[in-house]
């Protein structure tokens, strides 16, 4: 997708998240992953990423792309990785601490959104 389309998708997902509280942590974490991935794609497109397709999950990026991303966008890939890690424990799993994980996911989403906005 194009940058404007990613931005619109991220905005819509973030608007939907306003209907949730931290107690809805499964939904908050998933929404942060989805919106955060759109922000991440904005940044990759902005830097002329050679990837032919949009990124779906940061975890599946090649080692080379991950290394370059860390250099080009310090802290951004780490934020998306952190959100994705919460999915196994709190969305597919039932570890205690989901509310705190949701709060942290929102903070990571802020990192991704800020980075995407600074560049566009």
């Amino acid at each position: 997708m194009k940058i404007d389309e990613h931005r619109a998708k991220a905005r819509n997902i973030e608007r939907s998240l306003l209907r949730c509280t931290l107690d809805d942590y499964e939904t908050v974490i998933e929404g942060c992953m989805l919106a955060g991935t759109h922000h991440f794609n904005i940044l990759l497109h902005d830097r002329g990423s050679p990837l032919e397709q949009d990124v779906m999950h940061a975890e599946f990026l090649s080692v080379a792309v991950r290394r370059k991303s860390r250099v080009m966008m310090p802290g951004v890939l780490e934020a998306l990785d952190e959100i994705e890690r919460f999915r196994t424990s709190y969305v597919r799993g039932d570890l205690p601490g989901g509310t705190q994980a949701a709060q942290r996911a929102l903070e990571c989403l802020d990192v991704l959104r800020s980075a995407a906005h600074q560049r566009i």
Partner: protein
Amino acid sequence: MLIGAHLAKFRRLHAVLERFDPLVDKEMWIWNAMNGGVHLLNAALHKIGVTAEVDSFHSQLEGLYVVPDRTGGNLRDALHPPGDVMHVGQPPIAAPLPPRIVRACAALRSIEDLREPYVRGDRQPEPGDDRRWRDRYLECVNELVAEMGVDGGEST
């Protein structure tokens, strides 16, 4: 996960789903419907015994689980037979499934298939899509609830 944990997750996700409009909040509606459906499917598969009721969580990699240490709080990777499925057919289930679960899986897969065009892509829904999506979700839920004979928290 254990059946009770899957049912609790389903009920929580279903409750949030009711706050979303399938057209206005289409990304989160689709995602919540899918996640809730998968938890209910896992509960049903465990209950009929075609997958094992194990205290492990499916990771993002098909067939790779993490096992929680409930006292220490740590997680360790594990490879074991299913277990939870991540999505319909992931990992595949070899055993034959009852007709209700087959129908539920077909309905759930139709929700999962909405991810690419409407969540990751920017296709816009057509008039009536919201009703069709809801119908498929409720078909999935109702079939699974009927198979299990439990109260899924559904209001249909």
